C-alpha cells in the first residue's frame, strides 16, 4: 500500500478531500486490540464517533481502494438511515468504478437503500437482475437471489 496505492495522486486527492486518514503500526496498543487487528493491511472506515462500518484486509490497488472507501462511506450513511447520502456515494462508486470488486456489493446495497427509502420492492429485484446479468456466481448475486421473486 505504501509503495503503490497511497502515493497515487488520485488516491491522495480522494483521501485528502473526503476522509480523515490515520495510520498506525499493526501492534499499537490499545487500538490494535480494540479493533481486533490480526493481519495487515487492515483498512477500516469509521464514523466520526469512531464506530466501524467497513473493513478490508489485504492489498488494494488504487482502482480498488477508492471504491472500497466509497462503499465504507455509503455504509456509514446507510447505518444511520441517511439513504440519500448513501445513494450519492454508491452511485459515484458505480459510475466511476463499475468494474471494481466493491461494485457488486454497491449494487446490492443500492437496491436496499432504494427499497428502504421508498418501500417499493422493485429496486431489490432490479438489483438481483443486474447482478445476475453481470455474474450469476458472484457472492452478491447469490445474496440477492430471493429478490428474483419480488
Amino acid at each position: 500500500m505504501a509503495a503503490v496505492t497511497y502515493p497515487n495522486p488520485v488516491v491522495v486527492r480522494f483521501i485528502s478531500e473526503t476522509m480523515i486518514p490515520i495510520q498506525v503500526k499493526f501492534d499499537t496498543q490499545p487500538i490494535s486490540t480494540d479493533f481486533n487487528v490480526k493481519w495487515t493491511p487492515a483498512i477500516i472506515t469509521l464514523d466520526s464517533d469512531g464506530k466501524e462500518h467497513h473493513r478490508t484486509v489485504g492489498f488494494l490497488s488504487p482502482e480498488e481502494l477508492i471504491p472500497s472507501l466509497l462503499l465504507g462511506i455509503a455504509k456509514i450513511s446507510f447505518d444511520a438511515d441517511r439513504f440519500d447520502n448513501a445513494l450519492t456515494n454508491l452511485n459515484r462508486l458505480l459510475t466511476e468504478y463499475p468494474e471494481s470488486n466493491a461494485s457488486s456489493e454497491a449494487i446490492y446495497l443500492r437496491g436496499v437503500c432504494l427499497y428502504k427509502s421508498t418501500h417499493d420492492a422493485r429496486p431489490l429485484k432490479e438489483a438481483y437482475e443486474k447482478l445476475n446479468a453481470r455474474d450469476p456466481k458472484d457472492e452478491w448475486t447469490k445474496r440477492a437471489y430471493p429478490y428474483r421473486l419480488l
Partner: protein
Amino acid sequence: MGDTIQWEGSLEVALRRARVEDKPILLDFFNPG
C-alpha cells in the same frame, strides 16, 4: 492539498478532526516490515 497523504497518528486527534470537518475516518493498520 500536498502530494502525499497527511496521516494522523492518534485516534483522538482523528476523531476530533472528523467531528469538526464532518468527515469519515480512514484507519489504516500497517506492518512496516
